[in-house]
């Protein structure tokens, strides 16, 4: 590998933190979903780097599965979000305050 493994891990870590901040701090549902996708891709990057480091294919196969699952997750999530946008007319997470006690 030309790039040292630690650099790959640091990049994946930065991506993961960026995604987590986006998912936890933003109030817009679409932005939260994007944050989650970035986090999953950070995991994918770390897996590919580790697969190269250990010279195995397992890690790369895992990434293909992550991509498929992330697509399914977005499909379900967008359906939920579109439906609630039609119902409430907003995408702000703070407006979901019906359930409390």
């Amino acid at each position, binding site marked *: 590998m030309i790039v040292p*493994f630690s650099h790959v*891990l640091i990049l*994946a870590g930065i991506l*993961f933190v960026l*995604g*987590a901040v986006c*998912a*936890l701090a933003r109030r817009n*549902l679409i932005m*939260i*979903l994007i*944050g*989650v996708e970035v*986090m*999953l891709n*950070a*995991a*994918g990057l*770390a*897996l590919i*780097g*580790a*697969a190269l*480091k*250990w010279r*195995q294919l*397992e*890690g790369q*196969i*895992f990434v293909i*599965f*992550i991509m498929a*699952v992330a697509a*399914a*997750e977005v499909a*379900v*999530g967008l359906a*939920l*979000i579109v*439906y*609630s946008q039609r*119902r409430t007319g907003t995408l702000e*997470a703070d407006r*979901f305050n*019906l*359930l*409390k*006690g």
Partner: protein
Amino acid sequence: MPNDWLVILPLLSLAAGGTAVFGAGAFWRSRPRELLFALSLITVAAAGAAVVLVAPQAASFSGVLDLGSYSRFFNFLFLAITGLTLLFVRHYARERGFAGDELYGLLLFAALGMALLAVARHWLIFFLGLELLSLSLYVLIAIRKGDAGSNEAGVKYFILGAVASAFLTFGIALLYAATGSLDIGASLGAELQPGALPLLMAALSLILVGVGFKISLVPFHLWTPDVYQGAPAPVTAFLSAGSKVALFAALLRFSLDLGPAAWSYALPAIWVLAVLTMVVGNITALRQTQVKRLLAYSSVAQMGYLLMALVAVKEGGAPALMFFLAVYAVMDLGAFGIVGTLSGTAADRDALENYRGLGYSQPWRAAVLAVCLISLAGLPPTAGFMGKLVLFKVVLQAHYRVLPVIGILTVIISIYYYIKVVIALYLQPRAAGTAVPRAEPSGVLAVAVILVLLLWLGLLPGSVLNLVSRIAG
């Protein structure tokens, strides 16, 4: 090996049944009314028979799946949970107009996801099982179209569940980077490389956070009351019993796999999380006035007791945990399921005032609800008492002192809010609330099974206790 295909027969029949339900829903418009329900029930029964009849085999499919007796126990439990949920949900869903193929098909696929969590010996299988379970649950929670609460609960569970899954996935990636193996046992039990310690700790904490979200440990529990309140009651029953037991079964196995050095780092974290979960879960439940929220906090607290016993897992605590998981599944399923059968079609029966005097107008269902609550409180002669007894016993045997004392104090506090509901059922005059729907056959059957199980596990726990200690030993 041809044998391998026979071993995964339970998983195959669940997948085939789910696909058949979706197929029938999509292509057979003029189907008989009960077809989908019958098909799902047959699937669960067939998978259950396969679990019982096929001989367990510890490592199959080149060590990726483990269908030994441990997985067999949990698979049977998941199928029982799914079967009881089907009985509870049949009438509930038809009255509210969501008894379509998506309900039954997703229930079966969620059961498959839970089974995969229990059999996984490879992180990829674990990840797929978790996502299969979560994706099915996102839709199941939001399945009441037009109901604002159901939709809001679905969105909340989706957002937090997706974040938790991302944490877990990154944790798995870091674990792979640190140890070079995606096999669950090998990666967790690996010898610590000197330089890899921070990486391994980061990986384990991310995995713990991800699992902690799903089984709602404090401080990751904030979604629980909202989601449990908004979801339709039988789905809440399935969510609280099924998904938590499945994730805890996986967590139990991770703890057993963890090498001694890593376990010594994990112990303090588990200790603190257990105390937080027991204390916060029970104290917050005290001031709830809505029954579904109260039960939600109670289920948080029950996870705290399980986590408390997890510290003793290396000293032979596993059988007690397995026994309590089965007990917990029955009593939580019963409590939420009965709330569902008592609810009118407009909204679930939630406010505590609406339970006043139900003990006299609905003697049977109120009585079983009271038994479930007494069992959750951990009072004899119910299953909950036996479950708590064995949990506290293993913790004391492992020479912990502070932890069980805190645990017993919170159990005493918790009796107050469970009894509050029982008092409302029996000792307060009937409120002029909504009418209670009549009992229907499948609901009655489910309630009767719950009652029998709770009393059987409470009075004659010997056979099950022997079974779990044989499996764990």
